[in-house]
């Protein structure tokens, strides 16, 4: 009986120590990078076994969510953006630059005149929920083809109109690699469920990367930049949430 009580107490004590230990490890600088090796492993394995152009499942009209949930920014807190929205985005331009042969400034009308793709896909948020929407937009590959990507380019960086806090330069941004950039379902969407993209969902233009989680699909796009590395951009992790500890590779 003594032994049993002793064992029980030891187990309780060990449990408490392990818990505080795990919390403390999470706050060190050296431990999380060890956990992050799993991200590299997951990305490598998923990329290895998934065909480059394997498509995310496409659904039918009857699967559509009645309203497509807005998450994160619902209306950018930015005067310039609000002025553009006031004018129906007539003066909005998407700039395409960085490692390209021909930098571009594309209006919404020009984007709509380009080849388009409509897809009904499932949006999976990192929080755990899913919603299904019908997206219409121009394949990113078409925009990249027009700009002429230089061979040194390895990532596409998306810069957004929405500041995430009061500090300067807190705007949302994201990045994907060339595998996802040229994927047939990677589009710059200007339409949702047959109507122009609403402001809460990222008007006038948002990214769709259907084989990754929602936070990769930047809203309120202002510019696209082809880069060799994103080390020097903001926190250096390739995205707003990535700079705050989320995985750059959000395929899982």
């Amino acid at each position, binding site marked *: 009986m003594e032994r049993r009580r002793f064992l029980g107490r030891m187990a309780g004590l060990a449990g408490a120590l392990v818990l505080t230990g795990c*919390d403390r490890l999470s706050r060190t600088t050296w431990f999380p990078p060890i956990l992050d090796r799993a991200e590299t492993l997951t990305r490598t394995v998923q990329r290895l076994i998934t065909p480059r152009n394997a498509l995310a499942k496409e659904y039918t009209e009857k699967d559509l969510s009645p309203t497509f949930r807005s998450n994160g920014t619902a209306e950018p807190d930015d005067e310039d953006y609000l002025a553009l929205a006031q004018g129906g985005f007539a003066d909005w331009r998407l700039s395409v630059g960085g490692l390209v042969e021909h930098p571009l400034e594309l209006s919404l009308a020009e984007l709509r005149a380009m080849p388009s793709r409509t897809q009904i896909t499932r949006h999976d948020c*990192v929080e755990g929920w899913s919603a299904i929407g019908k997206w219409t937009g121009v394949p990113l590959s078409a925009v990249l083809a027009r700009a002429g990507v230089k061979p040194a380019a390895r990532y596409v960086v998306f810069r957004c109109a929405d500041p995430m806090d009061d500090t300067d330069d807190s705007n949302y941004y994201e990045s994907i690699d060339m595998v996802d950039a040229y994927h047939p379902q990677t589009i710059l969407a200007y339409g949702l469920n047959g109507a122009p993209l609403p402001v809460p969902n990222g008007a006038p233009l948002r990214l769709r990367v259907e084989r990754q989680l929602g936070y990769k699909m930047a809203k309120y796009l202002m510019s696209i930049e082809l880069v060799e590395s994103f080390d020097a951009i903001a926190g250096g992790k390739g995205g707003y949430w990535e700079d705050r500890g989320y995985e750059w590779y959000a395929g899982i």
Partner: protein
Amino acid sequence: MPPNEVAVPGRLYKRHSLAVRVMHWINVVAIFVLVMSGLQIFNAHPALYWGESSYTGAGPIWEPGRFPGWITLPGAQWLSMGRRWHFFFAWVLVINGAAYVAYAVASRHFKRDLWPARGEWRTVGRSIADHLRFRHPGGLEATRYNVLQKLAYVGVVFAVLPLLVLMGLGMSPTFDALVPGWVELFGGRQSARTLHFAAGAVVVAFVAVHVFEVFVTGAWNNLRSMVTGRYRVPPERAP
């Protein structure tokens, strides 16, 4: 005194191989971390749904609210850190589990100790009654797993944990693109999330019963056998 290879009541004998002991404790750590970081991830959207999407107009099938911080990892609301722990130890669980299955089959541990023998299936009813009355075998009988124990181990290793991993992967948008339509066999992505949670609950229930049995059948003896490999065979039970 070196442990006996053959079991004699009242004496120590070698019960668990080094491989089984090492993999068992790796598993303890992995499941501990996976359950707690899993609850952390659940807390980011504490509702479960059936079907492909969460927004069909039907609403959630279960909405328990957030789990308290003392059973989540990390303790505070911190989704990104929970995911990092979860995916690291998911790999640990999968690699350790694959190694265990390979070992169990190759060493005949599976056939010898885990899969119920032909005549054993008929003893399930009696075994349930014995468990409910806390009647535990003594003597040499205690050196073999009883039929319920075998079924629990086989069920967790070959059914619950594989389902758990598969449903975890079912939540991965890249994995869903790899094999189109497979996650629909389980009802869709949100169903996969719900089943992942349910299978996790089964694992927690298994661990609770397992630890309970470890205690009521001789905590020290059982614990030693899983650390040093040596188990003292209990004396024959009086009839």
